[in-house]
């Protein structure tokens, strides 16, 4: 079935829903969902150019994000929680006033999230955080923060995803399940592409998956190392030993020594090996130490062949958030700006630690959903303090916040830069207009910054 025919068919299906409308196709659309940051989406709009009819090339999650922006019941104005728990619509100006006042009144506000928005918004947010002396943190704090710490320990030999597509013939997925979490990763970059030096696609690659579960990714592997849960460090260490040809005990992490030697030999014998890793190693026992040694394996492999290691970053622009803070403050997450200069001390300046220890007295959340991802103890603290949630969706975080400010979807209703998991920056595209009168998060932040500066000047 040809692609154009498929397109025609789904267009016709859409056309049934939108009688009398013809589609306009927007090409090269960038998907604002995960760190894979696919940039080959095509979006069909109705004749007026206002409504999204269909999304092509996207995975199910990405398509849903575009289509969800079209929901009839979408919130389009800020809502303030009342004493009785009900929500009352307020204007954006009132929302700006509440947010600015909250940030000014707080001794040490937490400004968290920053992973599902553009770098321009992150940049304005950084200046705002600096002016009010905030603690700023992004979603890496509960995701790849441990990877960032490991990179500070031992560095990271890496490559862009195109290098993998064009050269890699040994691909390891460690503690990650791209079949579900990054659905187009294997077809676009890592397993299936026919690249410049990998003309046979998946046939030119050996795939190794390390996961205690038999995931859908593991089912595809040439070798699945089904290790004992929580023993990643030992197994990585054993692979280092095997790479050097030293002696191993009979089993390590539940894997027989001969299998470990076989994997080591497979990696060494390739022309270009790559390790992709996810939260199975970053947030399990050992945390950053797991990543330290995974990077050390990669370093070691470079003495025999060429090797790279790439974290499977989650949110589509969590990477960008670390970049913006890197160039403005020098650290990728866990920033404490409260003393007038940037301090970085994960475990002390990380958001969950700050919340649990009652060290912050206001919560500002943008571009993430800690209500869904943080421990309930932290969420309870957010619920108890002055709080603002800036998010296009109604989320568990917005539900516990005092003020919910809905904004336009970045990558759907407004463009802006985002960084892929390999740090490649791509400009997301505006596909449709946001609902009338809605602000983007950058616009909202700019208004808050202006108001904060006025208040500070007056005080």
């Amino acid at each position, binding site marked *: 079935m040809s692609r154009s025919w498929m397109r025609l068919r789904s267009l016709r299906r859409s056309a049934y829903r939108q009688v009398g409308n013809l589609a306009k196709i927007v090409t090269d659309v960038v998907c604002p969902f995960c760190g894979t940051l696919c940039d080959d989406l095509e979006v069909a709009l109705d004749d007026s150019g206002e409504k999204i009819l269909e999304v092509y090339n996207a995975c199910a999650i990405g398509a849903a994000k575009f289509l969800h922006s079209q929901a009839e019941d979408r919130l389009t104005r800020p809502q303030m929680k009342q004493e009785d728990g009900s929500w009352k619509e307020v204007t954006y100006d009132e929302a700006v006033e509440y947010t600015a006042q909250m940030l000014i009144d707080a001794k040490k506000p937490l400004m968290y999230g920053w992973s599902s928005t553009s770098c321009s918004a992150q940049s304005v947010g950084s200046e705002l955080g600096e002016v009010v002396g905030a603690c700023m943190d992004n979603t890496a704090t509960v995701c790849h923060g441990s990877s960032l710490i490991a990179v500070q320990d031992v560095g990271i030999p890496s490559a862009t995803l195109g290098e993998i597509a064009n050269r890699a013939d040994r691909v390891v997925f460690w503690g990650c399940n791209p079949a579900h979490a990054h659905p187009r990763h294997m077809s676009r970059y890592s397993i299936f592409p026919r690249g410049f030096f990998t003309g046979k696609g998946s046939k030119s690659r050996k795939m190794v998956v390390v996961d205690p579960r038999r995931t859908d990714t593991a089912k595809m592997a040439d070798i699945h190392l089904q290790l004992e849960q929580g023993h990643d460090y030992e197994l990585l260490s054993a692979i280092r030993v095997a790479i050097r040809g030293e002696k191993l005990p009979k089993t390590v992490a539940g894997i027989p020594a001969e299998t470990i030697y076989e994997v080591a030999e497979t990696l060494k014998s390739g022309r270009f090996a790559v390790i992709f890793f996810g939260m199975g190693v970053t947030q399990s026992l050992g945390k950053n130490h797991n990543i330290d040694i995974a990077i050390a394996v990669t370093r070691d492999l470079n003495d025999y062949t060429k090797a790279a290691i790439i974290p499977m970053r989650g949110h589509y622009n969590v990477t960008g958030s670390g970049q913006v803070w890197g160039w403005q403050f*020098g650290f990728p997450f866990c920033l404490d700006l409260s003393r007038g200069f940037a301090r970085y001390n994960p475990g002390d300046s990380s958001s969950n630690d700050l919340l649990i220890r009652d060290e912050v007295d206001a919560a500002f959340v943008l571009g993430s959903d800690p209500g869904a991802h943080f421990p309930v103890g932290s969420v309870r603290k957010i619920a108890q303090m002055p709080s603002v949630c800036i998010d296009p969706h109604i989320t568990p975080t917005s539900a516990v916040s005092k003020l919910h400010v809905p904004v336009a979807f970045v990558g759907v209703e407004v463009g802006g830069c985002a960084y892929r998991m390999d740090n490649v920056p791509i400009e997301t595209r505006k596909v449709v207009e946001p609902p009338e009168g809605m602000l983007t998060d950058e616009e909202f932040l700019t208004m808050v910054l202006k108001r904060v500066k006025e208040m500070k000047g007056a005080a």
Partner: protein
Amino acid sequence: MTDYIIRNGFVYDPVLGINGDIMDVAVRDGKIVDAGDVTKATEIDASGMTVMAAAVDIHAHVAGPKVNVGRNFRPEDKLFNCNVGSGVKRMEAGFSVPTTIRTGYLYARMGFGFSMEAAMPPLYARHTHEEIVDTPIIDQGALPVFGNNWFVLEYIKENEVENTAAYIAWLLAQTKGYGVKCVNPGGTESWGWGMNCETVDDVVPYFDVTPRQIVDGLIAANEMLGLPHCMHVHGNSLGEPGNYGVTLDTLKIAEGHKPNNEFGRESVLHHTHLQFHCYGGESYASKSFESKSKEVMDYVNSTDNITFDLGVVTLDETTTMTADGPFEFHLSHMNSLKWANTDVELETGSGIVPFIYNPKTFIAGAQWAVGLELGLLVKDPMKAYVTTDAPNAGPLMRYPRVYKWLMSAKAREDMLNNVLKYGDSIRARCYIGELDREISLYELAMMTRAGPAKTLGLGHMFGSLKAGLEGDVAVYPYNPESDTDDPEKIEYAFGNCATLIKGGELIIKEGEVVSNGRQKRTFWVNAKTNENPVVERDISEKFKRYYTVTQNNYTVEGHHYMPNPYVIEVDATK
């Protein structure tokens, strides 16, 4: 816009031939004007101080992906190295890899008006531009890297200079780049397979071209386009003992090439951080290693189409970063510190490793000597530009210290006698002990202003106080008559300018930053070429098959990447 008149300073301007005369300098509507042409100007008293056009940096790594890896993976670089924001100033942090905010303030305090980011991976151009936008005050441009680019390798293999030129013009427009940078030609592509090109005649795997062909082809294409800047090369075998032969081979490729441009540029090849490329001997040990700066400078002095920058080692703990991926791998094995690397599809690669130039070792002292020797052996200072290849040989903030060493034999003696542990071996293995030349303020103005501006093709805007040029003026608290007693005064003065006017705006007033600058610009070069269907087809083909972004998503466009662009138009259609 306020007009300014800077009164009674000692003025140095090699373009106008002014050598320390006491005179007034005036700025009106953002441009330099004759002092008699301003009437209601704000007066700035510069009596007893040195006045120069703002400085121009031809080569520094201050913005972009590898710089940011350096920041993010070295939290220790910020320890005891930060400033609290106050007044208009935002918070600053970082020593060897400062934040963009600090980079802007550092340049301002050192009296700079323009800086060229030395290596921009094209696929990461947006990142470089985002950092440039967040670097206050100074004007900037960025050089995309071409020396390992698959298009370039393929065209040059077939001797297709015209296609190479068309591709360069296309890429400059896509990435908003300024000129042609070439890092370890062929070597970084080889590094895609864990290999390297160590001489100009090593063959690049699969692509079957040599570094010699790449450098030659890029020079030819650069001059065919008539770009403002010449081909800017970091040669093969950087940092290797005995590499000076490779360096001479690289420099000699310029023979037979003539500059072709409308910007007054005379060089066709700029060799950057030449210090790293002038080593003799077979190892870093004092029994073997020797300086070959004289041998290289004898050649450079005999040519008229080559320029270079020094890349002086400042004996600090710093962060090395380069598109020379195999070199950083090699370095990480030498010092066993953390190593970051990023290979970039179809284009380039890069590596980052922290490095300590320890004055208690022979080799660091010898490297320090080699860099200074180059500046002291050059006959025409218009060819030699002061850099530290920041942050590779030393942090940006050490420029004034390098000026001190160049300007004072006493300061160098002090280093050899009291600071460097192996001063005597360094005298024996290098030329530094034989050189008593002291660079004058007039020569310093050539090496930091007039020279780099000319070689960047920006002599019509920067580097001089000639009427009509940009209103970029720096006043340093240094009295050339009475402050010559103590070389430390040089270092202090050039790191703490009393006044900086940038584009006609007062940025530093009485030594304090009073503005973040309202008109910071990003420079890029738009070279128009004839339509070239072959190159267009090749580009489209490569994007469809081998890039992981689409061709339409490759172009850097949008206000947020370049709120204030300055486009230099070049017509290469003739």
